Structures are given as C-alpha cells and as structure tokens.
C-alpha cells in the first residue's frame, strides 16, 4: 500500500537508470543518511559511537570490498586482512613521512597501495580458479603479516611493532572525539558504498558477473578476462585498504600486524556469506550480525542472576547460541540476510494483499 511503484514512471533513460528507482527507497535512504549524519552524533553515547557503530561501519566497508571480488566477480579470497593491513600501514607511513599530506589524502593513497598489493596477489587468478585461488590469496595473508613484523621500517622502528594513529585533523577540525571518528568513518563508508553501487550497475559490474557465472562464456563474448579480474582485485583492494586504515585510525587508534591475522580475513568472509554474496546491503546486514549480535548476547547474559552459571561457562554458552543462530539463518536462507531483506520488500510491495 505504502510501498508500491504504481504511478512512478520514468520519462528519461537517466531517471530509469538512477541508483534507486523507487521513490520510497530514495526517500528512506535520504532519511537514513540524514539521521546517520545529523542526529546520531548528537544522541549517540561514547559507547555507541566508539564501540559499536564505528567497528560496524568499518567491517561493513571491509565486507563491501570483499563482496565486489567474491560476490560479484566470483574470485575467492582469504587475503582481506592482508590488504587491510597494507592500507593501515601505508596510511601510517604516508602521514609520517610525507609532510603536508592531509589525512584524507593519506587514507586514499593508503587504499591505492592496498589496491596495488591486491592486484599483485590477484595475478594468479588469471591461471587458477576457485579453491586453488583461495590458497594463493592465503599467501598474501601470511606474507604481509610477516613483512610488517620483520621489517622495522614499516612501523617506524617501533620496538614493539605497534603503530599509533596520527592526530585526526581535517582542515583544522580535530576529529579525535568519538563523534568525529564516527563521522569520518561514515563519510568514507557512504562515499565508497555509492561508488561500489555505481560500479556494479556499470559495464564493469556486468562484466564481473559474467566472469563469475562462467568465465569461458564471458571470454567468448569478448569480455577481457585479465583486465576484468584484475580490476576487481584493484577495487576490492582499495576498499579493503581504506577499511584497514579506518580500523586502525578511527576505531582502535593503534594497530599491530597481528591485528590483521587470518581470523580477521575469515571474519570478513563470514560477513559476506551471512549477509549475502553479490549484494551491497548484505554487507551491512552481515556486519551487523557479526558485530552486534555477540555484544547483544553478552549484554543479555549480564541480566542473568549472578552465580547461577560460572562466568567462563556463560561465555561459552554465548558462543554456542551465536553458532546456533548462524546455522539457523543459513538453513532458513542460504543466500544470506540480504535475500530475507529482499523478500521482505517484495512482501511490503503488495501489502496488505498477499499476491
């Protein structure tokens, strides 16, 4: 009733091809953005901004980066955390060693370095596919971590190998407070999400999907495989690099190579599997599931009367519940939360009728 496209006609190709064709979608997106930019920083407490929203946004962005590569272009990768690490360490070194470079510039350039690394480790994808490619991206994971631990130059010869964030200042505004960190993160996430959404609707995105579905067929109809695959690695690496820099600088404020280990790569992979492969919104849903649910469970367990269950066992219980929820969701909807979201919208279009 409220969510119907009746009466919305496109009179130009331009309007037909816009990102969100439905008026309701557009308006709710504007409202959401307005809320996120203008309201949340004022009503959010330190805890919400620092410990929940910022990591949620950064991991959504990381999910987006991997989703372009895996969900859209069909190239499996377990090197996400490595490219995040490259982004973080490149940003740190640019801030440190290139005088006069503004923070935004360092973060973007950090992403470019990550993109270069990603292309380099994406080269094997021209010859190998599927799980074999997964193993070769695993090499990136171990190599990058080893490199940053081994070569002291990357961490400015810090004895402990840990880097600390430079002051977060943009055009004279100090963004070190929780709201500032949140807004900086949100800005990057929104900009890159719009970029990604545009790309997947463009020719490049369609090429990616053709390669994903059957690369021989794609080659036959004239899609340049090498270029398409490497562009997927590049863009994915760029977004992951920016996500890594944000993780290091706006969220934790410090980072060590160990913080970008294999389990981080798995975490990003789970985000896109649970959220939905080949979906933009799925990254946000998946990140929400992975980041927020354990915290919600932990808070809920705080309401348990003390002493009934041993503290250690209570923690393990939360893990069991979380695991059960993952299994439950994937049985109910193997295509991820994004698919559930889509079904909900289909339902809403015809509501209150059933068909």
């Amino acid at each position, binding site marked *: 009733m409220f969510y119907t496209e009746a009466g919305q006609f496109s009179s130009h190709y331009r309007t037909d091809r816009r990102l969100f064709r439905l008026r309701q979608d557009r308006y709710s997106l504007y409202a959401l953005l307005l809320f996120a930019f203008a309201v949340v920083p004022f009503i959010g407490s330190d805890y919400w901004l620092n410990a929940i929203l910022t990591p949620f946004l950064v991991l959504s962005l990381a999910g987006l980066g991997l989703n372009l590569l895996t969900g859209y272009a069909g190239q499996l990768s377990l090197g996400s955390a490595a490219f995040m690490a490259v982004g973080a360490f490149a940003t740190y070194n640019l801030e440190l060693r290139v005088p006069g470079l503004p923070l935004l510039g360092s973060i973007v350039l950090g992403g470019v370095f990550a993109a270069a690394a990603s292309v380099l480790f994406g080269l094997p994808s021209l010859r190998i596919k599927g799980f074999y490619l997964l193993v070769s991206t695993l090499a990136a994971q171990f190599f990058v971590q080893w490199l940053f631990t081994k070569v002291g130059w990357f961490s400015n010869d810090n004895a402990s*190998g840990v880097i600390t964030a430079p002051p977060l200042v943009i055009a004279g505004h100090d963004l070190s407070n929780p709201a500032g960190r949140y807004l900086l993160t949100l800005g990057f996430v929104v900009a890159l999400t719009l970029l990604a959404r545009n790309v997947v609707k463009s020719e490049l995105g369609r090429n990616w999907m053709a390669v994903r579905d059957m690369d021989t067929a794609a080659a036959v109809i004239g899609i340049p495989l090498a270029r398409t695959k490497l562009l997927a690695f590049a863009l994915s690496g760029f977004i992951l690099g920016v996500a890594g820099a944000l993780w290091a600088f706006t969220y*934790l404020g410090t980072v060590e190579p160990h913080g970008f280990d294999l389990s981080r790569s798995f975490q990003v992979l789970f985000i896109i599997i649970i959220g939905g492969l080949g979906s933009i919104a799925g990254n946000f849903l998946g990140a929400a599931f992975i980041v927020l649910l354990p915290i919600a469970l932990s808070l809920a367990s705080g309401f348990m009367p003390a002493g009934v269950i041993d503290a*250690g066992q209570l923690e393990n219980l939360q893990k069991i519940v979380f695991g059960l929820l993952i299994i439950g969701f994937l049985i109910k909807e193997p295509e991820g939360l994004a698919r559930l979201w889509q079904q909900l919208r289909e339902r809403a279009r015809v509501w209150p009728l059933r068909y």
Partner: protein
Amino acid sequence: MKQTTFRRLAALLAAGLLASGAHAANEQYFPLQSYRVGPYAAGGTGFFGGFIDYLQYINAKGGVNGVKLTWSECETEYVVEKGVECYERLKKGLNGAPSAATNPLSVGIAYATLDRSTSDKLPLITINHGRTDSTDGSVFPYAFPLQLNPHSEVSAIVNYIGQKSGGLDKLKGKKIVTLYHGSPYGKETNPILELLAKKYGFELTLIEVPHPGNEQQSQWLNIRRSKPDWVILRGWGVMNPVALKTAKKTGFPVDHIIGNIWSNSEDDAAPAGDAAKGYISITTHPSGTQFPVLQDIKKTVVDAGKGNLADPKRFGNVYYNLGVVNGILNVEAVRLAQQKFGKKPLTGEQVRWGFEHLNLDDKRLKELGAYGLVQPLKLSCADHEGGGAVRFQQWDGTKWNVVSDWVQADRKLLRPIIEESSHKYAKEKGITPRDCSKES
C-alpha cells in the same frame, strides 16, 4: 483486586528504582576486562581470580576507609576489539560508583585503550608488561607499567648472570644466546641486549623461533654448536615447554636457561616434565601461599566459599599471585589518593594521583602482609614503573623455588633509551610533555 496488586507492584518498582538512583553508593568501581575463555584463559582466570579475591578480602575488612569496592567483568578473550568494547562499556562506572583504573592484562588491549584512557582520565595499569616508554609519565600521564617493563626485564637478567659469574666485569667474553619468539613482543628487547653486550663485552647471539614455536630442532642444534654459557628464553605459550624439551634432547644443561616474564609460570615448565627440572626463570612475585596476605585471603574469602577460582588447587600460583599483587597496588593507590582527596569514591584522575605517589617500602609491605611478595616500589611523575627488580626461581619438577634476592635492573642506563622513545612518540602525536618538576 487484580488492579490493586498491579498498582502496588508498580509503586514498589518505582520506589525501588528511585532508591537505586538516589543511592549514590559509597563505592569505588573496578572495571575488569577479564578473559576466562580462549587460548589465554589460564592466565586470565588466575590473574582476575587473584584480583577479585583481594578486592573481596578488602571488602570483608570494611573496604578502603569505609568505601566498598565493586567490580564487574566483561569478557575480552584477549581479543583487542572486544577489549575496546568492554572498556567503553564499563568505563563510566557502575550504579554511580566511579571507575578507579583499568587492568586489561593484555598488551594489545592496553595499546588500543592508551589514547582513550588519557582522554577519559582513567589510569591504565599494565603490570609487568605494556609499552616500555610509558614508563615516562611526563608523556604518558595515565599509563602505568608497574613493577617491571620489558627493558628492565632483560637488564635484570644480565645482572643476574653477572652475579652468577662473579661480577659484571666477568661477563667479558661470555657467550649468551637469546632465543626469542618471532613476534613484536619477542623482538622488543633485542636492541637493549645488543647495547648491554657492547657495554659488558659478552658475545650475544640472537636466534628467532617462528610462531608458535612447536619445532625448534635446528635452533637448538645451532645453540649446541656455539656452546653458549647461558641461554635467555624469551618465549610465549607452547614455545616454552618445547624449548626445554629440545634443550634436553640436544644436551644443553637446563639450569643455564633463564626464562623471561612470559616463560615463568607453572604452565610453562610443567608440560616439559623431567626436562624442566632445574630450569630458571625470573619472577616479580614468588608463587606460594606462605605470605600473610594470602593466608588472610584464604581464611576470609576462599574458606568462606567465596573464592573466585574454579579450581582451588591453583590458589597461590604465579598468575593468581600476580592478581593479588595487582590488587594490592590498585587498592594502595586508592588509599593514598583518599588521603589527599577525602575518604569517598574517587575519580580516575584522583586515583591516578595515588598511583603516581605510590611508595611501598618494606615497612608498609610488612603491614600489608606482602613482604617478599611485592617488591619495594616508589613511583613519581617521571617514573611510572617504580621497581624494576625481579627474583629468580628454579623449577624442581613440581614447583618453583625462589633462588635469589631481588635483582635490580640498571635503570639509569635504560632511562635515556626510554626517554628517546617516549619523546619520539610525543612528537608523532603532538603531545607536549608535562613538566615533572612542577607536579606536586
């Protein structure tokens, strides 16, 4: 009838809420970022068990000048972002009781909450670990690597080897091998060892063991070939027992291996079985239950069935005693700060003053029943470490026996290195160091 019951209930509830709101408790709160599951649970349950038991013991004695201590736990699993989440969740205090200090017992979490602690004005206690350069309190006003930082650790070990050889001048020409874990933690002290090698003229060989270190055959063959006088083991987790076993297999005498602060627990030596007999390691606090304070905790807390340890056999082990030591230092800081700011719940900023003026001499330690358990400690604005001494203990196959008195690190030698590093940090972050001569 039904309605009146409901109303009564509502009134009761409202009264309860009001009461709890108005009840600005006379309590001081400790946010505990504990870890009871995951790979480091052994350390977490022991440390936080000891810490909580000491807080219970203080409460049983009436609190700190009448101010009761409260705490709540948040599980970190030793994972950095969970630790940050816990920090943000707990930092505001509990039911009106303000937070005193955070004690994450994790290097990663400590690094990630360093900036936050400073801006939230909440002391960050990293007992026996943490950033070495946070010893310089003029740059790191809220970080306290109490008792022992990594630099002091190796310096004390070298001093002990000197003692054993009959004087530091006898170190000349000796061969020392350091076997270190291939991680930032493992490599952190290598520059200091090199410096000491140059100063005392011993021959230093650094050998890396890649993480996790469950295969060390080639490293120990190298060691056997060079026949060093001493091996310093800078291990972590499974690397420690494997090192001891491989040493035995290759025929290196185990009583010439000295373990560092993360190679010194029962859990490091016991799995090596017979191979560990005679193994020496450093400790900032002996294990054991003979200290009066531990006996009191046993009497008032553990025997009353309120002890925090699930396995009572672990009472008095290395991790548990570290928790007790940490409890003593935290409570003493609160007590000291109360002398200045009044006998009431204090803010983190006020407790920081207490930490910075901690002065535990032998007399005070005897009053606390912790003589021999805690080293004499004196902190100041510029010095957030305070002690820098360790004792050495030897494994007899079933337990640790203390075999030395307190051995001091050469802190004068280390200070310029610490300052160089902290000033570099200050420059990177745009911090103006405090002028410690103006601090009261």
